[in-house]
C-alpha cells in the first residue's frame, strides 16, 4: 500500500507530494523541483538535508555520502530517505538541478546485449514510451529482488522508440552488474527510473567539446558526442580522450561513432600496456589526464569539458584543468559518484 505524503521545504512556500516508496530527492525531482544532488546512490553527499519535522526511513544508513559526525548531528541523504509522514526538510536547491525531462519509473525490457570488451557490454532496453533524456544523463536500474538500484549512463540519444542504451562494466563483486551480465536474459524486465544527472550536454555553449572518460564512463560521453550532431553552433570536432588499463580495455570507439555518423577525435591511452592480450600496444601510455594538454591545439581554457570515469581519474583531471591551467570550474561537467 503506497501512501503519499506532503513534503515542505523549510524557509519558503515550496512543497511537493512524495510517495511512501519513493525517496525525498526523487519525489521532489519528479515534480520539477531543483533539489541538489549528483549521484542518487548515497555516495556523493550533495543531497544532504536536515529533517525539521516529520518522520523518514533511511534505506541506506551506512551510505558513504555522510560522515558519522554528520549523522550524529542529524544530517540525512535525500536520495536514501523515504517519508513515513508529512515532513518539513531543509535542503539546498538550484536551477541547474531541474531536469528538462522529469524523471519517471518505467518498466524496461532487455532487447539486446553486445560485448564491447572483455568486461564491458552494451545493454539495450525498450520502454513502452519515448526515451526522454539529455545527452550525458543517467538512469537507475533496479532488478527484482535486489534492493539497491544502480546508476548507469545512457550512451544513445533521446528517441521516440523508447530505446535506452547503457555501457556497463562487469564489476567482480558487483551484485547488479553480475546479475545484468549473467542472469538477465533478452526479454526480461527491470525497473528503469530516470533521467537523472547534471553533467548533461550544454548545447548553448559554443566552446569546442572535450570528453575525458575511463571504464564505463564511455557511455555518457558517447551520448554527448552523438548529441553534438543535433546541436548546431558547436565549434570544432569534439575530442575524446579515453583511458583504460590495458589495450584490451579499449573498445572500438571509432566504429561506434561512425554508425551514428558523428565525427570525433579519438585518443585512447592505456596505463598498463603490458596487459596487451594479442598485439603489442603502439599507442599512448600513461594516465589519461596527462595527455589532455598534448592532444588539444588551443589553450585549455578554450574548451568545455565533460568527464566520466573512476574517481581518481576525475580528480586528477579537475586538478590538472583548474589548478594548473586555470580552466574555470564552470566549464567542467561531471556527476560525482564519490
Amino acid at each position, binding site marked *: 500500500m503506497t501512501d503519499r505524503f506532503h513534503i515542505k521545504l523549510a524557509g519558503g512556500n515550496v512543497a511537493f507530494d512524495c510517495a511512501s516508496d519513493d525517496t525525498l530527492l526523487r519525489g521532489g525531482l519528479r515534480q520539477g523541483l531543483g533539489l541538489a544532488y549528483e549521484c542518487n546512490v548515497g555516495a556523493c*553527499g550533495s543531497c544532504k538535508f536536515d529533517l525539521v519535522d516529520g518522520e523518514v526511513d533511511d534505506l541506506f544508513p551506512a551510505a558513504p555520502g555522510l560522515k558519522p*559526525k554528520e549523522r550524529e548531528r542529524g544530517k540525512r541523504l535525500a536520495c536514501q530517505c523515504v517519508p513515513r509522514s508529512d515532513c518539513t526538510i531543509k535542503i539546498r536547491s*538550484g536551477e541547474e538541478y531541474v531536469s528538462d525531462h522529469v524523471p519517471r519509473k518505467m518498466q524496461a525490457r532487455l532487447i539486446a546485449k553486445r560485448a564491447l570488451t572483455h568486461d564491458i557490454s552494451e545493454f539495450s532496453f525498450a520502454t513502452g514510451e519515448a526515451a526522454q533524456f539529455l545527452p550525458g544523463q543517467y538512469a537507475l536500474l533496479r532488478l527484482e529482488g535486489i534492493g539497491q538500484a544502480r546508476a548507469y549512463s545512457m550512451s544513445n540519444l533521446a528517441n521516440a522508440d523508447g530505446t535506452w542504451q547503457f555501457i556497463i562494466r562487469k564489476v567482480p563483486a558487483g551484485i547488479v552488474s553480475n546479475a545484468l551480465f549473467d542472469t538477465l536474459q533478452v526479454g526480461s524486465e527491470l525497473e528503469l527510473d530516470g533521467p537523472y544527472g547534471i553533467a548533461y550536454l550544454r548545447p548553448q555553449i559554443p566552446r569546442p567539446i572535450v570528453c575525458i572518460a575511463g571504464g564505463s564512463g564511455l557511455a555518457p560521453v558517447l551520448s554527448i558526442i552523438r548529441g553534438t550532431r543535433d546541436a548546431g553552433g558547436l565549434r570544432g570536432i569534439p575530442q575524446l580522450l579515453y583511458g583504460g588499463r590495458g589495450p584490451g580495455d579499449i573498445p572500438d570507439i571509432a566504429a561506434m561513432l561512425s554508425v551514428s555518423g558523428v565525427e570525433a577525435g579519438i585518443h585512447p591511452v592505456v596505463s598498463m600496456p603490458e596487459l596487451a592480450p594479442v598485439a603489442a600496444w603502439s599507442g599512448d601510455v600513461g594516465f589519461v589526464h596527462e595527455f589532455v594538454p598534448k592532444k588539444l591545439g588551443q589553450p585549455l581554457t578554450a574548451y568545455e569539458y565533460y568527464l566520466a570515469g573512476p574517481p581518481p581519474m576525475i580528480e586528477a583531471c*579537475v*586538478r590538472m584543468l583548474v589548478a594548473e591551467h586555470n580552466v574555470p570550474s564552470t566549464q567542467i561537467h561531471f556527476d560525482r559518484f564519490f
Partner: protein
Amino acid sequence: MDMVSVCKTDEVAPGTSLRVEIDGLPPLAVFNVDDEFFVIDDTCTHGDASLCDGEIEDGQVECPWHNARFCIKTGKALTFPAVVPQKTYVVRVLDGTVHIEKND
C-alpha cells in the same frame, strides 16, 4: 593601504567562526584559532556554501556541503572536490577589533 574593520574580537570565541558582510567585499569568514584571528572568503570556491556553517578542526575548516577541507591560515584547498584556494586577507587586531587590509 586601507584597513577595514571587520568585527570585535569578543564576537568570535576560540574554535568558532563568524560570517561578516561588508559593502564592496565578498562575504567574509572570521576564524579564531587558539586566539589567533584569520579572515578568508566565506563562500566555498567549489560550491555555493558558507564555510562558517562548517566544522573547524586542527586549523582546517570543512565545507558543510561537499566536505572539502581548507587550511584556515593559508586558504589552501586540501581535499577534493575543492581545488581552488580560498582568498585570504592580511589581518591586524587593534584595540579588540579585527581589521583586514583591503587591496584595491
